[in-house]
């Protein structure tokens, strides 16, 4: 009997399809021939396994079909997790991992801050003094005297005190001015005064404490809008050592100052600012920093308290950003900035003569 015949016979035997005679012959062969018997055992085992394999496959297929049918008929439905939400479940599942991660992070943070504290240079925190001017009693007296003289033209209501002063300059000929926000701290009213001593009422349109910038608008019938500004507002950065000048009101008349850009960042690495070497005094805050082409490159805002001539100016690009924010809030009606300078080729004296018309003293009323 060859192997095919043998497996066929084994199967026939196992299925009970053999006649009694065939059965007897088959069993006799097994008994007399151990090799045939061994073959029978192998074939029986394999066929047995085949039957159970097939059986399980059938049941599985049946279960699969039934699941499908029940799902389609809606008899079984997906269960919403009513006991706990996904987050809670994730938390319970991973809380140990999270705990370990958090403690590692905590230890690392402590370590780093410790190392930083040990190795960082112990530089004293730069003391920066804002350049707004405290109006001295003397000056107040003199301005009071002038107020009495010019009572008719005075914009400041009697009885209100001018407490602080700064500088501002036009960024739009229609009467928009920019100044330092710190100049306006605690202001209840603002009056601006030009270099000829004329005063105009102004309102604070927008202030950004972070950038230390504020926008004022002259709201006064006496104000005659100009056709265009002589200077442009620069969008670009500056090079170290570029000469710059400023105009401002550290006292009751406009004062010119000259210097150069000494660093491209401000106090303690503040990249919103420049560091200048220029003489500036309280009252210069909010004044323009202008390069030789007649472009405003910054707004003066502070000086280092313990070093002479170290002054910081906010980059002029921030004016553009501020105006964009105002436009988002619908506060910049008709406000348009120009980068084009009209006084590019002029000598400094003529430049200043044109510019000073646009520089205003800020008087803060409290």
């Amino acid at each position, binding site marked *: 009997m060859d192997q095919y015949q043998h497996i066929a016979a084994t199967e026939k035997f196992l299925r009970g399809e053999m006649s009694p005679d065939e059965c007897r012959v088959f069993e006799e062969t097994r008994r007399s021939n151990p090799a045939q018997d061994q073959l029978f055992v192998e074939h029986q085992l394999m066929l047995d396994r085949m039957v159970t*394999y097939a059986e399980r496959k*059938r049941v599985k297929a049946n279960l699969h079909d039934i699941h499908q049918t029940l799902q389609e008929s809606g008899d079984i439905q*997906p*269960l919403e997790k009513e006991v706990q939400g996904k987050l809670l*479940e994730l938390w319970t599942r991973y809380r140990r991992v999270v705990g370990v991660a958090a403690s590692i992070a905590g230890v690392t943070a402590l370590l780093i801050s410790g190392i930083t504290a040990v190795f960082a240079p112990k530089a004293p925190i730069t003391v920066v003094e804002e350049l707004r001017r405290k109006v001295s009693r003397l000056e107040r007296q003199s301005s009071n005297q002038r107020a009495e003289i010019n009572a008719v033209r005075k914009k400041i209501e009697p009885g209100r005190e001018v407490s602080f002063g700064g500088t501002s300059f036009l960024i739009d000929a229609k009467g928009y001015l920019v100044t330092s926000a710190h100049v306006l701290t605690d202001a209840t009213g603002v009056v601006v005064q030009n270099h000829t001593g004329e005063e105009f009422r102004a309102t604070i349109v927008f202030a950004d404490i972070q950038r230390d910038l504020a926008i004022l608008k002259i709201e006064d019938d006496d104000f005659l809008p100009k056709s265009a500004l002589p200077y442009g507002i620069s969008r670009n950065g500056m090079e170290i050592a570029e000469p710059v000048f400023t105009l401002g009101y550290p006292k009751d008349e406009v004062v010119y100052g000259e210097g150069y850009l000494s660093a491209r960042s401000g106090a303690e690495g503040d990249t919103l600012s420049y560091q200048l070497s220029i003489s500036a005094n309280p009252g210069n805050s909010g004044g323009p920093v202008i390069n030789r082409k007649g472009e405003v490159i910054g707004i003066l805002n502070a000086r280092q308290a313990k070093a002479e001539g170290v002054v910081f100016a906010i980059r002029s690009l921030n004016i553009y950003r501020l105006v964009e924010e105002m436009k988002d809030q619908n506060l910049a009606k008709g406000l348009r900035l120009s980068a084009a300078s009209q006084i590019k080729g002029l000598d400094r004296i003529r430049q200043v003569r044109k510019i000073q018309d646009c520089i205003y003293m800020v008087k803060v009323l409290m």
Partner: protein
Amino acid sequence: MSRSDRDSLLLKGLALNEKDAIHFIYKENFSLVQTLIIRNNGTEDDARDVFQEALLVLYEKSQTDDFELTCQIRTYLYSVARRIWLKKLQYLKRFESPDEDLVETVSIEEDLEAHEKRTAQYGVMKAAMGRLGEPCKSLLEAFYVHQKSMVEISAYFGYTNADNAKTQKYKCLMRLKKLFFAEYKPQ
């Protein structure tokens, strides 16, 4: 009809792999097991797999000669499913003590042991069948799994007659035998 009478009728149907009986058992008990699995970090798919495996355990139990179910079908399925799922959770290291039980449980360890043995055997045959290649695999499955007659098979596979198909079937079985014993490890 009392509950136990109904259960024994259903079990008879299950033992014969009858669709109606299994459909009924499935419909009655699936949501209980599903709730158990989902409440214990499982998914819809986990619920389906575990429930079907539990049903398979019950089916296999129903095939034994001295088959007798001493508890309700519901209790049995729940106990098996619970045990299977706990094992899986332990395996996946997601183990947490399960929620309090929804129904009482019975001891099913022996049945599960038998089931696991069968699962291992099933795996051996499945692997051997997987390596067998065509047309042998389809031919053997047609005969053993789908229980087609040799006449049907010879028509389907294009043999001239049933005897030719039979010869082919035994050739395939001989090939399978080699693969099967290569996988097979006596227990």
